């Protein structure tokens, strides 16, 4: 039977491709282009090559804040890797213990915060940690630590770490679920065989289960990376666009917002905003590239 060109395919594809192209793919490309332009006093844009990037990376007026945001973003990501993913792994391991009663209830409840708007989450924790209300101080008092209570969100040294931990609290459900699913998929025969051989639960975890879920851990890492380097809402809702105190919680997302829209004394610039967005794009692209490179090599090794 001769196959004609299925014209219906075009009708089926058209709406999705049009909307995706017009409002996602092309704006992204256009933003990359716009990063090469500069805006003069009259608001007109002209081609400027890499001038924006030179400003961003080397002119102290821009670069101090930019590198500060980049560095903070790295710390933000680091905290997630150090706390969120190991704790997620621990909880997932406990949940996947065979015959555990109530596993479904636990994972449903622990996943709950992930669904809340960051605006709400940020504010809830602001209330708890505020010295005004004192819930945090009171709770610490119950275990005799009231003297150690500090307004962590308000101090330059601790604000970013506190915000990272709030973010960890909210999003731990995602690595937890992904790792949990991967652990359930580990073939029972392998584990049984190891048990018969007399391997301890500890050894089974480290030498059998963990290596088998490496691909999932890689996925969790890249999801965390992209999410963290694109974060904005939490900082904005807790600290505002100025990411205080003294820019100590400024990350690329909030820096992008200020550069693009301006804030208080700072005047917004679409072209500089586009340059910042392009830098964020490059950072994310590097992360994704490393991920695929690492996964690719791992797959080849297993073959």
């Amino acid at each position, binding site marked *: 039977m001769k196959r004609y060109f299925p014209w219906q395919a075009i009708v089926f594809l058209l709406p*999705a491709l049009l909307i995706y192209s*017009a409002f996602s793919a092309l704006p992204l490309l256009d933003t990359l282009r716009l990063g090469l332009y500069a805006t003069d006093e009259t608001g007109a844009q002209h081609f400027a090559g890499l001038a924006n990037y030179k400003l961003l990376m080397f002119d102290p007026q821009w670069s101090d804040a930019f590198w500060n945001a980049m560095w903070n973003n790295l710390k933000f990501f680091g905290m997630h890797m150090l706390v969120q993913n190991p704790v997620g792994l621990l909880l997932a391991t406990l949940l996947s213990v065979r015959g555990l009663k109530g596993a479904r209830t636990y994972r449903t409840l622990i996943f709950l915060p992930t669904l809340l708007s960051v*605006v709400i989450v940020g504010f809830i924790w602001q209330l708890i940690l505020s010295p005004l*209300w004192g*819930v945090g101080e009171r709770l610490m008092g119950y275990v005799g630590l009231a003297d150690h209570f500090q307004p962590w969100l308000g101090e330059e040294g601790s604000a970013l770490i506190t915000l990272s931990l709030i973010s960890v609290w909210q999003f731990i459900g995602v690595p937890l679920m992904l790792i949990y699913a991967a652990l359930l998929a580990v073939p029972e025969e392998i584990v049984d065989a190891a048990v018969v051989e007399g391997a301890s639960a500890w050894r089974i975890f480290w030498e059998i289960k963990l290596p088998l879920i490496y691909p999932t851990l890689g996925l969790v890492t890249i999801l965390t990376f992209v999410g963290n380097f694109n974060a904005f809402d939490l900082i904005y809702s807790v600290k505002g666009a100025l990411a205080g105190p003294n820019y100590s919680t400024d990350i690329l997302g909030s820096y992008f917002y200020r550069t693009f829209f301006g804030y208080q004394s700072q005047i917004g610039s679409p072209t500089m905003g586009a340059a910042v967005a392009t830098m964020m794009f490059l950072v994310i692209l590097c992360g994704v590239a490393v991920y695929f490179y690492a996964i690719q090599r791992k797959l080849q090794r297993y073959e």
Partner: protein
Amino acid sequence: MSTGLLHLTLLAYTVLALFPIVLVLINSLKARDAIFDDPLAFSNAETLSLIGYEKVLAKANVLLYFGNSFTVTLISLGCIVLFGAMAAWALTEYKLRINRWLMLYLAFGIMVPIRLGTVSILSLMVKLELVNTLMALVLVYTAQGLPLAVMILSEFIQQIPKELKEAARCDGVGEFRIFFQIILPLIRPAVATVAVFTMIPVWNDLWFPLILAPSDQTQTITLGVQQFLGQFVTDWNAVLAALSLAVLPVLALYVVFSKQLIKGLTSGAVK
């Protein structure tokens, strides 16, 4: 590890996960004094008060904001599911040479956040005169949700037995009727998974409402609550009530859909 210790650990973490939410909900139902006197207690006959809710509902356009959020979320969701399923069907059913490239093109949208294109999206919306309309949000969220939807739905459509389609074709059923009357009903479980996955980020988004539709008439509940919290930061009753009102729909949704969501997550829908 003993079972007791295991439960203790999981229980401790569950309390940590729920405590902040419960704290807000119980205090939103208290009189002002009680919020400060004993924030950790449930409200009793003496301290029960709905003053916060009355204030919020009277002062701010909370209901309007809720309506906006519902409108935007539902329409985006409808577009994502319908257009996503259509594209997924075309990509899996008609073996065109360009399909691999189209898949790659869409996969890009899963990895790169749409937020990075904001500068151009805003100027595009200005040109189309869509700034401060809900339409702008719908278009952006649809574009944002489509790639993942196409990916997940393609997986499902591939599992539909060939015989079904071939039989229909032999009977002379048209391609569009095959899709709408045979395929679409068959992939309903996958559609539910996609719906839950795309709904949450749309409902919770702060960035695009802030940039594309910040006017008082088009604010979503997330943006509305954000601004409300800024204005009424000292009115604790109102603040706690506003927070609770914003939490409740998500909680209700979760109760209804949690099985679907968890199944989607653990069966690898996002891999």
